[in-house]
């Protein structure tokens, strides 16, 4: 069964920069974000779909006006994140089983809303575990992410380098 996993725009940006956004298609996961967050995105190379039943790209969900109203109410409380980030959090809470984000504030708020939070390591483990990429490539990609994106995004997750990726790195050494 395919599960919906929300992805915030930073994660789209970061995973796209290291060439991993096409790798999830072999997983039983459908990545979702909102049109509000993605609408002005500058990532034309990212494969997307706007049809709920269609496969082959990140599903860009358009919230209804009523839902936008609920996001607005939510944004009045969550001033620490942007309105567009609120749309993703809202969608994650309502339609998805989890969210992929490395943004510390988003992680905290998602957790407070009871949303399962996955970081980039989880994503790498999934695609490496499914054999889409090798463990050593996953390790390399993790390092690439650390050097190509804002290091502060890794502040909370640096300590828990996954055992499997760590093992892969040790084998390589």
């Amino acid at each position: 069964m395919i599960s919906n996993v929300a992805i915030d725009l930073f994660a789209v940006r970061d995973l796209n920069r290291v060439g991993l956004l096409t790798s999830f298609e072999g997983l039983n996961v459908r990545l979702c974000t909102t049109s509000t967050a993605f609408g002005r995105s500058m990532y034309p190379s990212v494969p997307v779909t706007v049809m709920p039943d269609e496969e082959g790209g990140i599903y860009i969900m358009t919230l209804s006006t009523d839902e936008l109203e609920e996001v607005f109410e939510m944004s009045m409380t969550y001033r620490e994140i942007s309105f567009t980030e609120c749309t993703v959090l809202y969608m994650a809470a309502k339609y998805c089983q989890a969210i992929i984000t490395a943004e510390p504030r988003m992680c905290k708020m998602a957790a407070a809303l009871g949303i399962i939070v996955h970081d980039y390591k989880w994503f790498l483990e999934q695609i490496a575990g499914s054999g889409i990429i090798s463990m050593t490539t996953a390790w390399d990609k993790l390092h690439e992410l650390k050097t190509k994106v804002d290091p502060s995004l890794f502040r909370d997750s640096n300590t828990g380098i996954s055992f499997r990726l760590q093992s892969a790195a040790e084998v390589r050494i």
Partner: protein
Amino acid sequence: MSMKEIYGQRLLNARKQAGLSQDQLVALIGGKVKKTSIAKYERGEMMPETGVVETLAESLNQSIDYFFRPFTVEISSVEFRAKSSLGSKRAENLKSIIVSKIEKYLELEKLLSMNPDFENPLDDIVIHEAGDVENAAARLCTLWNTGSKGMGNVIGMLEDNGIKVIEIEADDDFDGYSAYANGEIPVIVLRYNRNTTERKRLTALHETAHLLLGFDKNIADAEKERLCHRFAGAMLMPAATLYRELGQLRSLITHRELGLLKDKYGISAKAIVVRAYQLNIISKYLYIKLLSEINTDKYEKHIGSNNSYEKSIRFEMLLSRALSEGLISHGKAAELAGLSIDELLNNLTTND
């Protein structure tokens, strides 16, 4: 205000900022909705579908977040001390841009749990004539510890003392503006483009005078402007300092001297000459002669090294602090800074 009302007012402001009529906006979005719908959105009677919200934001070059930000700031009526060519329509546009910047500034301070309380240190002074201005400037220099050697960084000093300084891009007909946001938070707005550092410093202090000085009710507006200018000059170059540098009486001052003083004190050659005349160091004849020589280039590139630099940095500092302490998300930081996500992250990595 409800979401519809906030959205409507924001849409109206954004359309005006873009200088578009409702018809032009409809054309810009390819007729996606009718003019009557735009009118209803702007009146807060109807909310567009999400797709239209996104199209309008993109067409008006505003972030989605802008349209859903509650109104938290009111500023007193906009009385731009600028050249007369700034019409009421453009004044309103500028006001809208300024209010938006102040809203973000105050929101950031709130997120950092900072108190914007401000107490006017010159509250008890009433200005009747030029001598009062000189005394007020001297008192402020003492209270703010600027010393008698001139001010190193004017904008930084204002920000350190509770005055918010915002820089915007504007045409030549806008120099500066000051007001109390929500009746209590002093704000100065400066033009950052096509402006010399010396002029920016002088304008900042001129606006400071408008914020801090209480004038005798019989003083006309034009005279107030002159007194505010004098205050700015006196802050940048206190009387004792100018006497020390130039002497009590001069029959000639060279461009070389003006250039050295301009570089040392960050005050324009023109303002030095005006100040020297106000303090009776030079005659009216020499004052007119020097001004005509200086005015051959309004940017004064022919006088001094023109290497000085001054910029408002407090907002950026607060933004970096909030981000590095994890108090706001990167998306929020981008929204407050008015940048795209990529621009924000590029800035962060560039500065590292």
